[in-house]
């Protein structure tokens, strides 16, 4: 029971981890991308369309499924869709200099609508269920069952779970330890100074938002192909907002967000593992992540430590000729 709980929490937290890692990279460049839930929905569209495309190339014959290609198609499509979402956001905010909150919220409205709209018209069939088997298993069954609880918790997941953790760690290293990360952070803190120092603010913001969008979109892929096992008629926007909350919770550090997402995921699925709770109590438990996030936000602003502050230029559009 407890092992199953931990295992499910890890699995569920992957959605948040992808979303928050992507959003942290985006926010480090000074872009407050409220469109992340929309981009995750776009990722879901990409995943389903990619898988559909692959199933069409093998004429829906589930015996012909090639494990590698069947994962690769949706993966690439998801990344493309997510990056397109980020590109769209950056085009409107960097090139057309629109307000980031407004563009982000529009992107979310649009993405959620498009998700429900398109996924309702994709013919499904058995192919998706078969294909999803290659998503939620990485290690063979014999290895997982022979190692007991350890295997159950740490080895019994699909490759996307490990990918999420690896991406979070890589993102942390890149942001904290490399020159690129230093430039990225300086643009998020003060774009005017960074511009004066010769950094291309637009380029960094475009790239960071696109990469962030692509990573966040993987959350949509994971949700549909792995967590739901290939059933596609669900949108992910609610989890997308939790990913945005997680960014604050993890004080803009992707490796903290590995643990943060685990906590969020555990709290979110806990009600279904506890017996004897009324429906009302379950709702209260689901509130805890948001309350904790507010607490973190307040506490970090109270203590005012430099390491835990939001990027100073977060949400501000940069126009070189202002003043």
């Amino acid at each position: 029971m407890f092992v199953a709980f931990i295992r499910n929490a890890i699995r569920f937290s992957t959605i948040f981890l992808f979303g928050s890692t992507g959003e942290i990279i985006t926010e480090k460049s000074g872009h407050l991308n409220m469109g992340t839930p929309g981009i995750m929905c776009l990722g879901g569209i990409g995943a389903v369309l990619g898988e559909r495309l692959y199933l069409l190339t093998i004429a829906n014959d589930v015996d012909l499924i090639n494990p590698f290609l069947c994962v690769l198609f949706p993966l690439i499509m998801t990344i493309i869709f997510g990056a397109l979402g980020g590109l769209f956001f950056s085009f409107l905010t960097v090139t057309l200099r629109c307000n980031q909150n407004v563009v982000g919220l529009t992107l979310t409205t649009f993405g959620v609508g498009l998700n429900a709209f398109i996924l309702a018209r994709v013919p499904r069939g058995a192919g998706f269920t078969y294909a999803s088997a290659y998503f939620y298993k990485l290690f063979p069954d014999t290895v997982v069952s022979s190692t007991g609880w350890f295997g159950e918790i740490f080895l019994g997941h699909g490759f996307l779970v490990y990918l999420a953790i690896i991406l979070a760690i890589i993102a942390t290293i890149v942001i904290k330890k490399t020159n690129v990360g230093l430039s990225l952070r300086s643009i998020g803190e003060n774009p005017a100074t960074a511009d004066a120092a010769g950094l291309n603010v637009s380029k960094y913001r475009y790239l960071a938002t696109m990469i962030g969008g692509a990573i966040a979109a993987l959350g949509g892929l994971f949700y549909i192909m792995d967590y739901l096992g290939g059933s596609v008629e669900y949108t992910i926007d609610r989890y997308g907002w939790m990913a945005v909350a997680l960014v604050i919770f993890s004080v803009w550090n992707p490796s903290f967000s590995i643990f943060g997402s685990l906590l969020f995921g555990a709290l979110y699925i806990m009600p279904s593992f506890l017996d004897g709770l009324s429906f009302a109590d379950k709702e209260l438990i689901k509130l805890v992540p948001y309350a904790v996030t507010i607490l973190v936000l307040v506490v970090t602003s109270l203590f005012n430590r430099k390491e835990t502050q939001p990027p100073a230029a977060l949400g501000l559009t940069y126009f070189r000729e202002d003043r």
Partner: protein
Amino acid sequence: MLAKKMKKNDIKRDPFIHLTRLPDPKARHYWFSKLISVVIALLICALITNAMAPGSFGDFFKYLGLGTFSSSLQTLRVFQDTAILLLIALALTPAFKMKFWNIGAEGQVLIGALGATIAMKFLAGTMPNALLIFVCLALSILFSIIWAVIPAIFKAFFNTNETLFTLMMNYLASGLVAYFVFVWVPNGSAVLGVINPNTHDGWLPKLFGQDYLINIITVVIITVLIFVYLKYSKHGYELTVVGESQNTARYVGINVKKTIIRTLILSGAVCGLVGFLLVNGTSHTLNADLVSGRGFTGILVAWLGHFNPFEMIFTAFLVAFVTLGGSYAGDIFRFGTAYSKVLIGIFFFVFIASEFFLRYKMNFSTEVQAFFKKIGDFFAKIFGPIGRFFKKIFTPVGRFFKKIFAPVGRFFKKLFKKKDSPKEEPVSKEE
């Protein structure tokens, strides 16, 4: 690393486009651009519809109209939706003018609705109906003010990021509402049902036999009040100054903290009014999805209306029109409910992009200009004669219309003369 970068940039190159900020557009140009945006957005939507259901290009416009204005009930529905959206946008406007990015309208409205529901459910029968309605209103406004003022206090005293704070408050509110609904309806159906269905205690009375009329009238009054508050009151002036620059505000002796908190009290109070109207005037029930994203749409309405209450009427109406018409067309084409959301998204994107062409001038480099000139000459060769022909025909028509509409235009010009349009947020220079 920086040295390397500098070297790269040392090669002098004429950038393709160089942007300069334009002064505020004339009202005439402004409304013309809005008109063009509507036309472009409608065309894009129609083309997409046509792609999904071939041959439906014309039908799209037909159903858009049929879904909104074919009966008096539908028309009233459009105005009711416009009213609610507008009221949410109005609630946000003072905060936004102060550059306090309150994206928590969804939660503030919902918690107000919770307050109204509590009063309606538990106080019904203990007092006369008029008093009950008043208590509902008071309680919903109180709840919303609390919800709005918590982030404001933290923003004022500790500079906590208000965007993220209010966003989280939305989810707390929707969770709390879900909790109370489950407490009141413990069987897990999450359906509270219509409150006081027989006695109609706490329901707003029908005006002239129409359900929503009282909502619409309230909103009209509030629109005027907010306009006056922002434009002619001392408070309105102070919050504008705080929005432009907190340092300036401090320098001229404005109490910034007090202004922030006071403005958010106002913002919350109007949100509470929306919650009250939704519960007592419209749905007479409560669920966690009562506001259904209108708190977020209201942000877009306020921003696209440039925080001018009268302009926001236009944007709110447009959103309500597209939502209702779009969902009607979606039903007929069997596109599902999400179809209207896609349309709304497209509309917003086109509007957002159109802002750019009003606010900035694109100065192209000489090479690009030469290229454009080539294209222009080419088209001039083709279309020149046609253009001259049309000019001949339409010049008299134009002169005629100008004669008619010039007085109307002058009137509107007067109305929008001192339009204070929002500038992009300046980078704060506090360090």
